[in-house]
């Protein structure tokens, strides 16, 4: 058994109405301590309203080597972007 505490990814919601944002990671023995540690490490300057802690091993990540197949096909599909509308001047910057 490893003697290192597991790694946790920390997500914090800054204000009501905003979504939780990834702020960084930390080590903790369990979920409860991960939240306490997050409170001490990431909310010292009044940044947070709500904390999520997810053990890093439970996050599935896409592989960097799949970059081509995953993202490049969308580059040539300009029709997916709403760039073909004439915006009336009155609307201003969008």
């Amino acid at each position, binding site marked *: 058994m490893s003697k290192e505490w597991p790694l946790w990814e920390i997500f914090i919601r800054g204000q009501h109405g905003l979504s939780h944002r990834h702020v960084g990671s*930390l080590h903790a023995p369990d979920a409860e301590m991960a939240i306490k540690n997050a*409170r001490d490490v990431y909310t010292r300057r009044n940044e947070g309203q709500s904390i999520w802690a997810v053990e890093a091993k439970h996050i599935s990540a896409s592989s960097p080597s799949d970059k081509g197949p995953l993202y490049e096909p969308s580059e040539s599909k300009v029709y997916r972007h709403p760039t073909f509308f004439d915006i009336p001047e009155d609307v201003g910057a969008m």
Partner: protein
Amino acid sequence: MSGLSKSVLYDFCLRMGDNTLILGHRVSEWCGHAPVLEEDIALANTALDLIGQTQFWLGLAADVQGEGKSADDLAFLRDAWDFRNGLLCELPNGDFGQTLMRQYLFDEWHWAMLTALQNSSEKRVSDIADKAVKEASYHLERSRDTVIGLGDGTAESHDRMQAALDYLYPYVGEFFEADTVDEAAAKEGIAPVLESLREGYDAAIKATMDAATLRLPDSRFAHKGGRNGRMHTEHLGHLLTNMQWLQRAYPGASW
């Protein structure tokens, strides 16, 4: 305010403020040395909270004293025999477990005391308590969880926590033994009757130690002398040497 009430309130504030000052300084000694980064930051936060509370208590003490002194004067220019903290607060950090056990035994009392002080007849006291109790409640949650985690952890961490408890428990009783200052403060409604906090405290630490698989010592023997300044441990002088050297070497220095 009568002369007697003034001196009672002054002594009371010194006792509260010296507890948080001395323990806060002790905890700050971990800064940069804790076993893991997360605990290092958490301990530094706790130390800063305690030193922040000290500014309120010693600031009020200086006001009540009325000699034009500041909280800093009281913190940095008094010598060991003028300090009024419980002996528990000045004991050395030892290992990480001992530090957290000391913190827990203090936090449990501190939280109960501040909760009671929210009903103080002295508005300036209840205002400080209102603010400080939120911090104390977080300190308590954290130190309690760590004591349970380490007590009910490996054989090694369990033995270290039991040794810490055996060493520190005899310093707990002092917080509940009232002298004439405490009796006068209770009579005026400034502070609760100290013994009235004991039952809740005992039940709380019993529950925590059970969860931590640790055994509370049978003896209720209590070291005392810190709160009335009669006799501090040899550790306080060393701590003050460290904490006060700058004001001693360069009187009045500021930055």
